[in-house]
């Protein structure tokens, strides 16, 4: 049979049985849509997170006492700077400040503009500051989230922190952090090192922890060994470990979702099976006629399979387009919360369009396999219909 005729016949059949196919089509689209939206959101967040991680120091050294991290002596910095291969050592001063009226936490980050900064991001941020003004005013820069909270309580120009030594420290607000600072968190408060020390109760010769940059990746293992040998009361966090940890966390969330989704896929199969199992009278008659005019079971099988394949592919394409728009144009409302978790003050990360072929293949496998499994038997059952029986 010429291809053109076959295609005409196919579409004719699809059109005739549109009510039967429509249900399956919509359901399939939904399945693809949910799966892909989930994958795309995960992937885009993953992408953003890893580019943020890129900026982090190669090692962070914390002093621990009985498993708890305590403030790290800054005298160690020099010792670490002596290790060959360590290019830059920077103290990190940060901690959480409990803001009682709202029962939220601010993350205080102290910066000494003359020290090396603990991340490339802070480095560029500090480089953009008017340092004379920052030092003279000794104020703070606050994240959007903090600003909203403080505005709500009418702290427009300053806020009074309470230090552990019962003193009250008034810090003028110098401005809000730029939009790119969202990776620091919406709850970030940037202020001078001395101020941060007083409010967080960190002694002048201590820091929260120490960040190290090792430019040559080949040397990182050696540096790590030397750090381990330097002090026995330390915890050393390598960037590579953080990356793996994040990767695992993401995969864990993804895998959990997929496992639960298995149940959905199974019911999808069952619905499909039930839907196609029952043969309409008109459909039976069509097959009977085809058989009667000389079609073999094999040919009827291929026709029916093609019919279903068209529905399956159509649904896949539509589901893909819809999910792409949902994730990247609408920024995946609701779904992104699955990944964000419970943040103290919400982080607003922009989902950047990022699509990998492998994701499409993954979703395709996960969708087409059950689809195929569900339709094979009904298709066969339809194809072996006896012409005489059907005509009766």
């Amino acid at each position: 049979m010429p291809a053109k005729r076959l295609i005409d016949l196919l579409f004719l059949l699809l059109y005739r049985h549109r009510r039967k196919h429509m249900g399956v089509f919509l359901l399939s689209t939904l399945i693809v849509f949910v799966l892909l939206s989930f994958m795309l959101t995960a992937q885009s967040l993953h992408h953003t997170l890893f580019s943020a991680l890129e900026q982090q120091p190669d090692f962070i050294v914390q002093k621990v006492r009985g498993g708890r991290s305590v403030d790290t002596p800054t005298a160690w910095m020099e010792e670490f700077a002596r290790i060959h291969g360590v290019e830059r050592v920077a103290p990190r001063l940060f901690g959480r400040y409990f803001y009682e009226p709202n029962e939220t936490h601010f993350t205080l980050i102290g910066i000494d503009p003359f020290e090396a900064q603990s991340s490339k991001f802070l480095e560029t941020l500090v480089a953009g500051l008017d340092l004379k003004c920052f030092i003279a005013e000794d104020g703070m820069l606050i994240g959007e989230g903090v600003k909203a909270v403080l505005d709500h309580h009418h702290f427009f120009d300053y806020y009074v922190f309470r230090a552990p030594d019962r003193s009250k420290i008034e810090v003028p607000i110098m401005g809000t952090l730029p939009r790119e600072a969202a990776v620091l968190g919406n709850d970030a408060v940037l202020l001078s090192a001395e101020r941060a020390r007083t409010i967080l109760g960190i002694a002048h010769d201590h820091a929260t922890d120490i960040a190290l940059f090792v430019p040559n990746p080949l040397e990182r293992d050696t540096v790590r060994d030397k750090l381990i040998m330097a002090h026995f009361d330390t915890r050393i966090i390598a960037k590579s470990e953080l990356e793996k940890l994040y990767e695992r966390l993401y995969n864990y969330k993804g895998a959990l979702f997929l496992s639960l989704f298995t149940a959905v896929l199974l019911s999808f199969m069952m619905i499909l099976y039930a839907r196609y199992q029952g043969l309409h009278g008109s459909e039976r008659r069509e097959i009977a006629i085809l058989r009667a005019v000389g079609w073999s079971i094999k040919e009827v099988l291929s026709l029916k399979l093609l019919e279903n394949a068209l529905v399956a592919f159509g649904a896949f394409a539509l589901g893909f387009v819809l999910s792409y728009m949902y994730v990247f144009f609408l920024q995946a409302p609701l779904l992104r919360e699955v990944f964000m978790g419970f943040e103290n003050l919400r982080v607003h990360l922009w989902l950047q369009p990022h699509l990998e072929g492998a994701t499409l293949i993954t979703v395709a496998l996960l969708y087409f396999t059950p689809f195929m499994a569900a339709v094979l038997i009904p298709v066969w059952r339809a194809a072996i219909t006896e012409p005489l029986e059907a005509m009766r």
Partner: protein
Amino acid sequence: MIFLSNAVIVFLLVEALLLSLLLLALYHVIPIIRHWDFADTSPRQYALEKRSYLAQLIIFFTLAFKIALLPYFAYMIDGLSLMVPGAMCAAGVLGANDYGAFLLGLKVAILFGVGLWIILNRRDLQASDYPYTRLKYLLFLALFALIAFESALDWLYLSSIATTTPVSCCSSIYGASTLGSPIPFGLSKEELLILFYLLYALCLVAALYSIGWISLFANAALIYIGYYAVVYFFGLYIYELPTHQCPFCMLQREYGYVGYAIWGTLLLGGFFGIASALFAPLHGSTTRALYRLSALCNTLFVLICSTYVLRYYFLNGVWL
């Protein structure tokens, strides 16, 4: 750790589904093997013929998906290299426990069996009296056993990848620093290359004149020698690095996923070549097509590999 990545879950899920489909097929296949007799005109034989349609339909689709699953397996393993300490690419992940390497070999072997089954099925359906029905279902039985074994191994392998124990990366597995020459028969690189192109020529000749036993021998040898030629010679030009010898890194995005094309064409070419020899006694148009496909895939394979080398030479004026 079975929750290693999304890909692992998807892979195992799809595999479980395929296995249950095959189980369903098995249920229909067993009575067919026992009672099939095309000459018989009884209702039982008539019913068996109908059941045979279902069985081959299910087996065909399942095996087709099975083929698609092998590259996906490679992709999944490659993705895991991010999580296994020390692994740069799939080589390290495969070496993470004792199952890995054996499993990969088994998968390739199953793929050959799957290919044979699909061709046999085709021949069977083309003939009016279904002469190979019993044979193809017997082949299916063997395949089913292998696939069930493979699925169990997959599960074992994936659930015993440790994310804390470091593994060796490809450069230390295939690296030049290992003692002695890794190339078989103590060949030098030049000899390896000569042998490689000679074998390719032999494959072409065998395909041209449809000489089954030569095709069988030459294609099997080409797979073997081709593997070493790619890892120890052509790979260097793909990576543009004279020290990097690894069959897996070329599956990565940095190299345009060219590894899938290279290994795909090599295995397909070899498969069609061997299959054509096996089907030669049956005669018919299928064998001709198989020879042609074999020659096509082998040529593609050799072209891809050689292009990398020539391109490098034209751009840089030196050999690696």
